[in-house]
């Protein structure tokens, strides 16, 4: 007579564990990564040369890394 009670307990525990796992999966989601983009450029005339240009484009997908810094260098 004790076996059915044990079986019921095991089945009940399994149902509870499965239910808990499903409920948790609903709320623990991984949000999409952020997409970043920064850009800076300058241009000017020196004498008759009006095509001097400096520019830098930086894009990243996912979390930004700290201290990532770039300077503008002339585009050749």
């Amino acid at each position: 007579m004790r076996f059915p009670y044990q079986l019921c307990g095991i089945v009940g525990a399994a149902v509870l564990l499965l239910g808990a796992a499903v409920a948790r999966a609903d709320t623990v989601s991984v949000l999409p990564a952020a997409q970043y983009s920064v850009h800076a450029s300058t241009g000017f005339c020196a004498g008759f040369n009006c095509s001097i240009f400096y520019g830098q484009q930086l894009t990243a997908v996912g979390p930004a890394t700290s201290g990532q810094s770039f300077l503008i260098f002339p585009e050749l």
Partner: protein
Amino acid sequence: MLQVGCSADVGAPNCAGSILLAASAPYLSVAASTSLNHTNQDANADVNVTYYYEVLCPTCSPGTLVPMSIGGAIEAHYIQGTGGTVAFQDLARIFVNGYNPVTSKDNVLIYQAMEGLGASSTDLTQNPSPLTGTPPNGFGFCESTWTGFNNCTGGPSSPYGLSFEVRVNTAYSIFLDANASVQATNQPFSTSYAESTLDPVISFGTGFDSTGYSIAVSPGIGNEASTVPEPATWILLSTATLALISGHRLRRMTKGSF
């Protein structure tokens, strides 16, 4: 942090910079300036980020709506030098996706705010959205929502933020963009400058009991007000750092030549 800085170390006279600080706050800042002794010059900077947020609620039934709000400061400024002709473009923008109870559509644009030259308000209840607001001369601030609310008042530094709704356990996107541009012609004896910044914070609606709820954002992104220095400050710091590096290199080269 992503940053593109000035170019004073390689001889470019102008200065343009973009900075994006993701944590502890999504903070955008751009600045552009011209310099002396050049008759034709321009500087341009832009920074943008798309990230995602979600209201987590383990015990809520699917589709539960939660009142939210987004707010913060949005700024755009420019300084025009004397003489010549100067053209500015200076704009900070924020676009928020959420739930639209009017159309019952989820994950659609429900709020936008912008500050700067040419800022214009859009009625989000119509598709395509018409322009319904015109900025004042110079700088304008505009914001609008799914309710048809449109506001185009405020100066170069305006607080923004209104309430909206989202469903629990659903990912929504936010797009932030700031740009600054200055083009000067025949202005060799003066300088012009433009900057814009954006610093949003998401929170639960006023009076809402948020027990059991939490706000998640994309990995690496924060959700707090920033304490980053103004663009003019970090441009000055960048220039000073470059000057120190250049001086150090010059001393090493001079020392090595003997």
